[in-house]
């Protein structure tokens, strides 16, 4: 018997909990084969794509290699291919449907196609690629100071290192720029990083659980990592990465959200209405990190942020 997991038609961080709920329910079914059904998908953000790969890896670890029905819409499936999704999915899923042999994109909005992160060398590759490709987009399209490109690469590096240092397994990163009409009516650059590893609670448990006592859980672990800057390592210089990401995003009025286990924490800029900490979400393996940097709009131009 096969258990069905529907991939939301608009698959991004907002619909991810719906996907996680379907995954948690299906994965509870005692080793039955999972079918991820994306045939009706109309759009997926980088967060959706890397999250789907994480689900695929977790399902593969649990039992039989899962099935994936590719999006039926030729434009959508083509975009997923150009975003590098199917290149990675081929190792995790038995893919059904018509998948074009599209070259992974060199188009401007895919700043970094879905890229595996398993070791420090992968992070070097990601940082090198993003510096070559992101500079023009960040300055000309998003209105960021050209010097901000390096900070962007630093934030990306630290996000990826969370996988290498803490997940206990590999993961994926993707970076895209697009018009975010629905939410912000501005262009944004989105970094999405996901893994199906041990998650923040497990990673920090040995050093932090006692300190938090009964409060200890996924939410407390995320709070410790993102707000208090603690790390599982006792080395005094640890915990710099997320603090650095926060500083960078604060400067550009960006957003960071991290989902791990059953909780999600976010540093919420004024253009967003997400709650800073949400608990009791459907359980999902590993950690999923989302960074959003919006186009900078001057007050004079009627926008909500300063250049």
């Amino acid at each position, binding site marked *: 018997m096969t258990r069905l997991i529907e991939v939301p038609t608009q698959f991004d961080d907002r619909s991810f909990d719906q996907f996680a709920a379907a995954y948690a329910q299906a994965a509870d079914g005692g080793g039955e084969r999972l079918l991820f059904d994306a045939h009706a998908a109309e759009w997926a953000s980088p967060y959706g794509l890397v999250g789907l790969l994480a689900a695929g890896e977790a399902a593969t670890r649990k039992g039989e290699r899962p099935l994936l029905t590719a999006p039926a819409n030729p434009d959508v499936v083509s975009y997923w291919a150009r975003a590098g999704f199917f290149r990675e999915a081929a190792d995790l899923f038995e893919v059904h449907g018509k998948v074009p042999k599209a070259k992974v994109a060199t188009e401007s909005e895919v700043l970094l196609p879905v890229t595996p992160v398993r070791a420090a060398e992968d992070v*070097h590759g990601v940082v090198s690629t993003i510096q070559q490709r992101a500079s023009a987009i960040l300055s000309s399209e998003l209105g960021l100071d050209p010097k901000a490109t390096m900070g962007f690469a630093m934030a990306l590096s630290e996000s990826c290192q969370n996988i290498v240092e803490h997940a206990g397994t590999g993961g994926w990163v993707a970076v895209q720029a697009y018009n975010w009409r629905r939410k912000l009516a501005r262009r944004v650059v989105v970094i999405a990083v996901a893994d199906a590893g041990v998650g923040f609670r497990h990673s920090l448990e040995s050093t932090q659980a006692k300190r938090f006592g009964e409060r200890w859980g996924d939410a407390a672990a995320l709070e410790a990592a993102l707000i208090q800057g603690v790390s599982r390592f006792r080395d005094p*210089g640890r915990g710099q990465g997320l603090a650095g990401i926060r500083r960078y995003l604060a400067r550009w009025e960006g957003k960071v959200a991290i989902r791990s286990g059953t909780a999600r924490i976010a540093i919420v800029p004024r253009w967003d209405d997400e709650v800073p900490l949400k608990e009791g979400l459907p359980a999902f393996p590993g950690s999923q990190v989302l960074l959003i940097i919006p186009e900078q709009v001057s007050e004079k131009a009627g926008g909500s942020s300063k250049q």
Partner: protein
Amino acid sequence: MIPHIMVHAVLQQAVAGFYTDLVTRPTGRAVRENIERDLPPGTIAVMDFTGVGCLDYSCADEIVAKLVRDKVKVLLLRGLTEAHREAIEPVLAGAGLAVLCERADGGLEGLGASEPAPALLDELIERRLAARIPGGSIRLTAA
């Protein structure tokens, strides 16, 4: 004689693959260990970042903060870009550490926590490695 460390060259020696970016803890650790091998404890050293691309917080901690904490008496950085400074400054400040850095005009200034920086400048002046010039700024005399 003050040891000069060309960070980009050390990076090429320390890790396999041609990298110009100082990112990730393992890379930082490899670079620092390579530097430490030739550096006597308690020394004064110049680290030149010319040619280094991206420097992330992890590498800033693994290389600069750990050398200052455990190995050198005074660390003088040169060839820093603004982005390098942005990575190094909060890492040092958070640990209560400081280094000196050489501006493009040759003047020296503290980077990191504000308390330890004056003592670092005094140390260089005392050893006649730096001197105050008319106008008040401090520059290296040697190196």
